[in-house]
C-alpha cells in the first residue's frame, strides 16, 4: 500500500487505511468497516490498538497548540 512504510504488515497497513478513512468527518461507509472488523478477530484487535493509541496522541496534541 502506498504511503505506509514497508515494515508495517499488510494487516497493519489495512487497519491504518481504515483508520485514515474513518477519522474523516465525512466518512459514511460504516457497514463496510463493520464487515471488515468482524471478518477476522485480528482485524478488530489491530484496528482498535491503533485507533485508541491515535486518539490518545491526538488529545495530547490538541492540548498543546504550541507544537504547530
Amino acid at each position, binding site marked *: 500500500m502506498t504511503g505506509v512504510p514497508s515494515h508495517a504488515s499488510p494487516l497493519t497497513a489495512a487497519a*491504518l487505511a481504515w483508520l485514515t478513512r474513518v477519522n474523516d468527518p465525512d466518512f459514511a461507509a*460504516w457497514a463496510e468497516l463493520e464487515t471488515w472488523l468482524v471478518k477476522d478477530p485480528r482485524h478488530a484487535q489491530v484496528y482498535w490498538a491503533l485507533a485508541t493509541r491515535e486518539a490518545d496522541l491526538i488529545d495530547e496534541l490538541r492540548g498543546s497548540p504550541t507544537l504547530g
Partner: protein
Amino acid sequence: MDDRVMQKATELQRLFMDLRPELLKRARALGAAGEAEDVLQDIWVRLATLPIEASSNPRAYLTRMVYTAVLDRHRASRRAMNREQQWAKLGNDAVHVVGGNEAERSLEARQELQRLAATLRALGDPVASLFWRHRVDGVPQRQLAQEFGMGLSTVEKHLRRAYAAVLNARRALED
C-alpha cells in the same frame, strides 16, 4: 444552553429513540458486544448533558457518536489494563511510589509530545500540515484537497503516511 441549541438536542434525542435498534446493532457490529447497551447509555447521557453542534445530517451525527462511544470504551479498558500492570509491578511498595508515579507519567507525556513533534517535523510538508489540519483542526479531507490543491486520494495517501509514522505502526502493535 440557548433555546436553539436546546431544541436541537431534543430533536436528536427523539431521533436517537427512533433509531435505537439500528444504533444498537451498529454498536455491536463495531465490537461493543455485551456492552452495546452501555454504549447507547453513554450516548444518551452525552445528548442530555453536552452542548450539541448543529448538524446538517443528524443521522450521521448519531452514527459517529456510536463509533466515538465504542472507541472511548476501548480507550478506557486499555487505560485500566495499563494501570493494573502498573500496580502489579509496584507490588507492596505501591502506596509509597504512587506520588512519584504521577510525576513520572506527566514527564512521559511531555516526552511523548516532543517525540510526536519531532516525527511531524521529520515528515515535512505537506504531510505534517495535512495531518495537523485534519486531526487537530478537524478539517475534512475533501476540504483539504481544495486547500492544498491536490486530489482526494493524494490527501488520503499523505495522511496514511502520517498515521503510520505518528503511530510508529510496528511498535504500537507490540505494546
